[in-house]
């Protein structure tokens, strides 16, 4: 009983988020479905597959792809997954082209011609691309339809868009992930609480491997960063792996709390011997990019690139575009939740205590 007051109510009104999307499926005014082209740099890698998966699942959840589109039971292969999407598209609000456009595999000129023709004939309404090169390719092609780049390391630095706030072209949208390596470094630091860390990197990969971001993060966190810097040309040499291992063996790592291997230094070929060396010395081997390296023996790869989430987010942006909004006006900023893979055998050898909260947030465990 509360006096003459109206019934005591709790009112909940959701405020608009920065990424509000119109997620109701729509078709063309004529009632026909929209046609989507998907472009990637061949041969496709795991990230392309994950992006495509996120895109398709997002579209299905919104209702653009009907129930008949069976996305389950895929073999985690890009082409197999694409084939599932296009297998039965009848009744869908969007229809994917029968084949994806794979630049650098098919003749790029041929692809350009094909796309122009399709656009002229009204057989293509929008293109979704993964990768920096497809983004640049489409920008240069300057087709009169919108295109969305949902996976590029730095679309601003690459020149696909002007900035995250203003893409510079109404028809172009590209997903921007801000400071992913800096956040990765901070993530590693909070997990391993290192004060001294070794870092191997390739000098020329400052931007794409995030070397600069690591340095900034170390400075901010007051972490001593001991760098081993290699030239890009040296990293392609046949004896690089041997030389790199020798350098590591000769490095005094007594004070190191962890070692970070930036993109281009540790790979599937040398991971076994390097991770063995690190775990023998009780130093956690952390990876800049690449789940497979952790599978091969590196202790952990904490990635701030949520590829599936990128595809999912692009699906929402695509929905807005299909509802008549300009691609260039759509929000480009996206921040991934961390994706963690770890190698339990290495963790044990290194003496790293795997706490329950970490194990809960780890996406995949290798042995």
């Amino acid at each position: 009983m509360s006096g003459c007051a109206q019934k005591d109510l709790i009112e909940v009104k959701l405020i608009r988020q920065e990424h509000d999307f119109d997620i109701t499926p729509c078709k063309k005014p004529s009632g026909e479905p929209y046609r989507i082209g998907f472009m990637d740099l061949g041969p496709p890698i795991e990230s392309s597959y994950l992006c495509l998966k996120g895109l398709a699942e997002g579209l299905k959840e919104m209702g653009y792809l009907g129930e008949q589109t069976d996305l389950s039971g895929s073999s985690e292969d890009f082409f197999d997954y694409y084939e599932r999407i296009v297998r039965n598209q009848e009744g869908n609000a969007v229809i994917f082209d029968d084949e994806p456009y794979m630049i650098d595999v098919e003749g790029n000129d041929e692809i350009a011609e094909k796309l122009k023709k399709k656009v002229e004939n009204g057989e293509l309404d929008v293109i979704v691309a993964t990768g920096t090169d497809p983004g640049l390719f489409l920008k240069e092609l300057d087709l009169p339809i919108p295109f969305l780049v949902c996976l590029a390391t730095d679309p601003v630095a690459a020149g696909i868009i002007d900035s995250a706030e203003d893409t510079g072209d109404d028809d172009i949208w590209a997903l921007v992930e801000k400071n992913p390596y800096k956040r990765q470094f901070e993530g590693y630091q909070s997990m391993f609480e290192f004060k001294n860390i070794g870092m191997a990197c390739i000098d020329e990969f400052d931007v794409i491997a995030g070397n600069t971001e690591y340095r900034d993060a170390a400075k901010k966190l007051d972490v001593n960063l001991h760098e081993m810097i290699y030239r890009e040309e040296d990293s392609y040499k046949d004896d690089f792996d041997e030389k790199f291992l020798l350098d590591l063996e000769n490095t005094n790592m007594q004070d190191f709390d962890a070692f970070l291997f930036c993109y281009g230094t540790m790979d599937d070929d040398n991971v076994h011997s390097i991770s063995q060396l690190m775990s023998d010395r009780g130093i956690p081997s952390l990876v800049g990019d690449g789940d497979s390296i952790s599978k091969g023996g590196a202790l952990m790869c904490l990635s701030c690139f949520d590829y599936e989430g990128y595809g999912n987010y692009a699906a929402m942006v695509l929905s807005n575009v299909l509802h008549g909004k300009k691609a260039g006006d759509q929000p480009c900023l996206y921040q991934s939740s961390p994706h963690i893979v770890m190698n339990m055998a290495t963790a044990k050898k290194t003496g790293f205590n795997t706490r329950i909260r970490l194990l809960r947030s780890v996406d995949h465990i290798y042995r």
Partner: protein
Amino acid sequence: MRGFFRKYYVLQFVSLFAAAGLCVLSYLTILDYFKKNEEQFITSCNDEVIEEITTSLEYGKTLSNYYGISDVLKRAALLLNEGSIIILANKDDEAIASTTEETYFQLERSDYGEVIQEIRNSEDGLEGYLKTFYSYIQIKEELKDSLKKSIIGSMIVFLIMTIFCFVGYKRGASDNRIILLMILGVIIQGIFLTVNYRPEFVKAAQKSAEGTAAYVNSTINDILKKGVVIEEIYDLDEYLEEKRQENDSIASLYIKDLDAENGQNEYILPLYGDNEKRTLAYSISDGYIHRNVLDMALTFIATIVLAIIVMKESMVLSEMITFRRSRLFGLPSDEQYKQIANAIRYGNFLSVTFDYMCLSFSALQIKEWNQGALGMSPITAAALSISICSIADLLGMFFMPYIGKRLKGKKLAVTSSMVMIIANFGCFFTTSTLIMIIMRFFAGVGTAGVKQVRNIVISDGYSCEKERSANLTANNNGVIGGLLCGMGFGGVIAGVFGYQTTFIATAIGYLLYLIFEFFFMPWKLLSKSSNEKENTLADNFIIRLKKTISSMKLLKTIFLIIIPQYFLLMVIVCLIPGRIQSLRLPGVVLTYANLLNGVAGLYLGEHIYKILQNKFKSDIAIQMLVLVTGAVSMMILNVPFFMTAIIILSSILAGLVDGIGTPVSMDIYMGNISIIEGLDDTESLVLYSVLGSAVMSAAPFILELCEKNAVWMYGSGIYLIVCAILLMKKSRRKKVQ
């Protein structure tokens, strides 16, 4: 039958009220228990989603741009009971995402409980809140059958008790026996209710433990499914212990071999994969269930004691009614003055009961509205609604000597009661914080008026010093009883019908008070007495007040007696609750501390006071003893063992300090030569009340320090003993003289 009801109508009403109270209390207790269990379960389960959000925020996500947050929340809601809604709000408390599809919706507060958990970043900065609303409807549905049984059972017990009482009445049983029968009926009802609700306590504990264990089990299994073996979870034991501690219903939670023998009340949940040989085992805490059942039983006893107090206080009514109908009413006689003391006691009992019934609920209501006023935040406005009442009371008392002269006792009683009735009606009907604050101000003014009426009756309602002393004792006892019952009943009414209902109860209560005062006070006699004692003092009040309080004798009385006495009255209000809280003792300890403090002050105090009067013959010697008792009541709180017993003992001692010390200190004060020469009786009582209010405003701050720091505690105790020693000198001087 009519004769029976006429004779015992007050007692019958009280026992009916007590029976209904027990019924309501038992239901509220079990409802609260269910809610507590549900909330513990929600808190446990939500830690995963909070962790996920916190981790994402650490990695640079922001709540304002948290894509996919609704899915995260929906996933978390799957763990909870049906009907639960999770809302994520930013640090400005604006909802960002929810598990419902709508962007705007309303929930009836009476249908949902709320669990609010903070989301903090790695630097411990507040980022937002996770709010979980769980449905009461489901809980109430589960308790429906038990509630029905408890109502029917209680009605049967009450009916049987009434029949027994009636038979006893017909057979000429004494009043005390009839009362005993009534109390026995209520006790039997209490036992029935305890037995009736016990299975529900077990059921709720089981459900909560099951839910939490299932959640822990699924968390571990999710990890095992990733390919981890159980030994690789480094801090698993720590985690299980943490989860066990989060849920009071769980006695143990651990990994055990499947072959190992099952413990009592132990349940097992399978673990995934290679670990089939081991299981997650948990057991329900019997101790927790017993504790809660015991708490309920203790609350029943407390309620029964309150009912006995009301019955005992109301016993005088039939005597008063008889006297009111006699020809002696309104004529100066010993019996009339005795009845004035009774009327003071019962009138005080009524007014203070109703004052305290609603006192703290304006703040809680404002907080529930979450509505500020005049630029103040809801929390500030809530605090103001309490303090404005005290300020108005204090200010009102300053003006009362002037107003009292114009309105006299009867008119002032009507006016003050009407102000109280209107102000409390206003508090009940309003939905505005500002109006609530204004109404509480008027309620404070009304309280000052009622106190002034009390002072007038005390000062005009005696023919000799002994009667005045009796009036003062009656006044104090009425206040103690009222305090005790007001807080108890207020809690029950607020719990059942909502905070605002306490105001309508108070308004109706003041109507009863007004009728009582109108009917039982011999206003003509009081007025005549007042005219005879007409203030012959020449100067106006302020000038006389200045002269009076600059007297060294009075200052000594103030500093050695009045200030320590009022300071000690706050021990039960501030120090003991703080102590109970810091020692994390159950809430029922506070209930009993208050109850026994009141009983000791009200009944034991009065009795011991009479014994001491015969023994010492000197009020100052008694007051010395009171101060030493007060010091002991404070200092024993630092004893590091038998804490519950120590707190109860301290509460009883504090009650005795109140019951004995208050009339003694007032007697000493009223007998002070500066007071006699400078102020009339009413003015003296006003000054006494103002001094008391001032001490009671400052005391909480000192007692807060005492609670936190033993030095302050012992320091205050020593101050009281020093006051007693200085009084000893005074006492000796008096003897020499």
